């Protein structure tokens, strides 16, 4: 259990309180430059937070050096020892922990198997592909058997398809460790597919926490709604209120079963990826995007009516985020 009490990343940012349980994957979802990396570095002990206390299983680790913390960190960049083979890279954290020789070999082989690196044990990092290098970095972090595993956008530098498959593998691997896993990302897809617990992050502070579906259904404010929306959330300003409409909740046909509201969408661009169609346009000067299943053709430049069910509209009082 990792416990943050009144932690401020910077002197003037809001304090954060959170209880991050072991054996769970906590996905920290935030935009670029929202302070995710600083949070990751603070947890790893590479940076110090402005104030507050970080406790691990009841022990205060706030002032503990990175080297003395039972924390492992995986970065965006693929960090391995360049002069060592894959095997030595995996063995070194075990060696540092004083694991016996036989046990080291056993554990390194086990990790290599889990990560699909068993055929590459005698290669050097520069002889590996990007995906394999990051697998190795993840393996080194797992070999530390740390109680906290911090992953700072670990898949962001990989090809799209590789990212998808490694993400699937990670879920199983990380669940087995029993560690507190903190995984930062900008992609709501990561939150849905990996997280048992989501931490929405903006302006160097926590906006909302909860199970992915709860956070999706009941965002506390507009920022929270936007973070959990792919690609973004649509904004509509009415007197005293800001409405947030998720792209998948806006449709072209008037729903028959529930009261709905109509909007005039000026279509600017229609994009498709085969499975979905994204219609980009504007409603009352605000940029909107509508996500439709399958393929759809809409004339760019024209205004078309679009509908959203009343109960899908997320309403927030004006000025609240």
């Amino acid at each position: 259990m990792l416990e943050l009490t009144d932690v401020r990343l910077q002197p003037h940012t809001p304090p954060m309180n959170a209880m991050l349980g072991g054996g769970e994957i906590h996905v920290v979802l935030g935009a670029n430059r929202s302070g995710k990396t600083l949070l990751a570095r603070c947890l790893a002990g590479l940076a110090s937070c402005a104030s507050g206390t970080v406790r691990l299983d009841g022990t205060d680790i706030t002032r503990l050096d990175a080297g003395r913390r039972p924390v492992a960190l995986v970065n965006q960049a693929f960090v391995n020892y360049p002069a060592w083979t894959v095997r030595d890279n995996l063995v070194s954290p075990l060696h540092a922990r004083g694991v016996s020789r036989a046990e080291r070999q056993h554990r390194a082989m086990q990790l290599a198997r889990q990560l699909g690196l068993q055929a590459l044990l005698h290669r050097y990092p520069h002889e590996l592909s990007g995906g394999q290098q990051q697998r190795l970095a993840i393996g080194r972090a797992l070999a530390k058997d740390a109680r906290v595993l911090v992953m700072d956008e670990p898949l962001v530098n990989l090809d799209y398809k590789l990212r998808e498959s490694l993400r699937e593998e990670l879920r199983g691997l990380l669940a087995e460790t029993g560690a507190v896993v903190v995984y930062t990302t900008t992609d709501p897809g990561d939150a849905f597919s990996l997280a048992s617990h989501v931490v929405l992050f903006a302006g160097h502070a926590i906006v909302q926490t909860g199970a992915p579906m709860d956070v999706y259904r009941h965002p506390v404010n507009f920022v929270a709604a936007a973070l959990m929306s792919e690609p973004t959330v649509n904004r509509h300003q009415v007197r005293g209120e800001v409405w947030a409409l998720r792209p998948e909740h806006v449709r072209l046909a008037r729903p028959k079963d529930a009261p709905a509201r109509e909007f005039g969408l000026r279509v600017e661009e229609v994009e498709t990826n085969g499975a979905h169609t994204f219609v980009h346009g504007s409603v009352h000067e605000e940029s909107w995007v509508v996500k439709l299943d399958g393929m759809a053709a809409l004339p760019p430049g024209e205004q078309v009516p679009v509908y959203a069910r009343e109960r899908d509209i997320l309403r927030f009082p004006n000025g609240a985020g």
Partner: protein
Amino acid sequence: MRTKPERQAAWLMVLPVVLVVAFSGVVPLMTVVNYSVQDILDVDTRFFVGFDWYRDALRDVRLHEALWRQLVFSFTALAIELPLGILVARCLPRQGRAASLLLVLCAIPLLVPLNVVGTIWQIFARGDIGMLGAAINGLGIDYNYTREPLHAWMTLVAMDVWHWTSLVVLLGFAGLSSIPPAYYQAADLDGAGRWQVFRHVELPHLRAVLLIAVLLRLMDSLMIYTEPFVLTGGGPGNTTTFLSQHLATIAVGQFDLGPAAAFSVIYFLLILLLCWLFHTLVVAGAERDDA
């Protein structure tokens, strides 16, 4: 951000360096300042003379001449070494075994001790047995660097160029290697000529490296002592006597400690001034452009 205890420990680690610098740099400097305001006849007989030595030094014609020669020499050397170094760096292949080999060859002059450089050139340029000197004489040009001031100057500049251009080459090579290939490709597609590629792609990317090169070479050439001392000994006459050698003549040759000390302080301030000017006018200007 609150400082962690470890951070304070870091200061302790720096302390030995601070002490060493203090004892090796600041204390001798203060001694020199102390000497420069006294007339020292022998160890026990010394008078406080105030700024007299400074006044004398500033009025000293030989110092003016040495300073003038110094500036001409430094800027001539810089004016040749910088473009030449960049030119050579541009001609080197960017990668492969040939690149490494050529870089090592280029770096060799930098590894030669200063007095050896002087000695090499002293022999190399001799009209009777030196390869260069004899060759020039063989061409029918009456060349003798120990007799003709112009020849002495040219030999000195050639020696400095031989010795230090490599530094610019190495720095320039590092700068050029860091330019992504996409820039060259884009310039090619934009129809840019060789000169434009140099002017608009390479030069802007080399700027930071070149500033360092200029600063290093300027400071270094202003303090040049060993090589001309070995090669020409400041001659013929005083025609190749630069500031540091002039200083050595007063301090060691004539043992005028007071004037020498005053001169040292002026010399030091001068270099400081030039570097400061360079920094404020060029480096800070460049940073302002970036902001």
